[in-house]
C-alpha cells in the first residue's frame, strides 16, 4: 500500500506473535530500543489459533515489569490488524511513534 510511516519503526519477523516471549521484549529494551509493539493478526483470526491472544497477555505482563523498573509500561503495546489493513499498520506505527516521542528516549541507552 506504500503508506508512509515513521522510519524509526523496524520490523522483526516472527512466524506468529505467539513466538514473542517476555524476555525478548525485555532484551530489546536492554539493547536500547525506545519502544516495542507487537503487530498480531486480528483477534479470532490467528493462523495459529491463539498465538496473538497469548502475546497480548505477555505484553500486559511486560507493561507491569517496565513499570517496576521505571521505564513506563506505555513503551510496550500490542496491536491487532489483518494483512489487508496497511492503513492500520501505518496508523499504529504513527501512534506508537508519537507516544514514544512524548515519553522521550529510553533512559536505558547503552553508553556509546
Amino acid at each position, binding site marked *: 500500500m506504500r503508506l508512509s510511516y515513521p522510519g524509526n519503526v523496524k520490523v522483526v519477523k516472527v512466524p506468529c506473535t505467539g513466538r514473542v*516471549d*517476555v*524476555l525478548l521484549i*525485555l*532484551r530489546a*529494551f*536492554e539493547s536500547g530500543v525506545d519502544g516495542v509493539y507487537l503487530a498480531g493478526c486480528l483477534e479470532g483470526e490467528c493462523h495459529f489459533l491463539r498465538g496473538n491472544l497469548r502475546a497480548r497477555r505477555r505484553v500486559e505482563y511486560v507493561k507491569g*515489569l*517496565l513499570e*517496576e*523498573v*521505571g*521505564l513506563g509500561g506505555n513503551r510496550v503495546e500490542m496491536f491487532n490488524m489483518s494483512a489487508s489493513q496497511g492503513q492500520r499498520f501505518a496508523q499504529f506505527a504513527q501512534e506508537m511513534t508519537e507516544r514514544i516521542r512524548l515519553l522521550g528516549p529510553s*533512559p*536505558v541507552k*547503552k553508553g556509546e
Partner: protein
Amino acid sequence: MIVGNRKDFSEILEKLGAARRVLLLGCNECVTVCGVGGEREVGVLASELRLYWTKEGETFEVREHTLERQCDYEYIDQIRGFADDYDVILSMACGAGVQYVAEAYKTKLVLPAVNTTFLGVTIEQGMWSERCQGCGACILDMTGGICPIARCAKSLLNGPCGGSSEGKCEIDKETDCAWQLIVDRLKESGQMERYEEILPVKDWRTGRDGGPRRRVREDLKL
C-alpha cells in the same frame, strides 16, 4: 510442588542494597514448574535489574544461572568456581533452596527473591492452589481425600464452622468450604459413615509445632 511468589522488584532492590555484582540463581524444579524461579524467570529478573541499573547509570554485573535443584548439595556445589566473584547470591528457589545455598556458601550474602507460599497443585495453566501443610500425620483417608488442615481456614477437624455458607468459606466467596467439599466427596464415594467418626484432637507435634523435622532412612544411607 512447592509454590511461591516473586518478591516485588522494589523489595528485591532494597535487599540488594549496595550490592551490584549479583549471581541470580534459579532452580529447575518446583519453582520452574510454577513459573516463579526457573530459567525464564531468572532471565526476567536479571533483565529487570539490568534495565534498572542501566537507567540509573550504575555499574553492575548480573550473572544468570539455574541449578537442577537447590536442595541438593551436589548441584549447589556447581557454582563454587564462580560464586565468589559476586557480592551476593540472589536465589529464586523456595526457602529450602535459599537456606541450603546459604549453608554451602557461609561467607556469602544469600538473598531470597521469592516468597515461598505453599505445597500445592496446578489448577490450570497459570493457576496454583494449596493442598498440603506438611503436618506430619496424614488423615486424608478419613476426609475423603480432602485435607481440612490445609484447606479449611481454621483447620477444623470435625465438620464446618458457622462461617460455611452455600459451600463457600466466610473468608471470601472464591474459597470453597473444605468441609463442604469433604462431605460432598464422602457422599459421592459412599463413605458418609466416615463423617460420623469423631477425629481425635490433633497432635501437632508431628507438624511444625514439634520443631524442625528431619527424616532418616537407614537403608538408603551410605
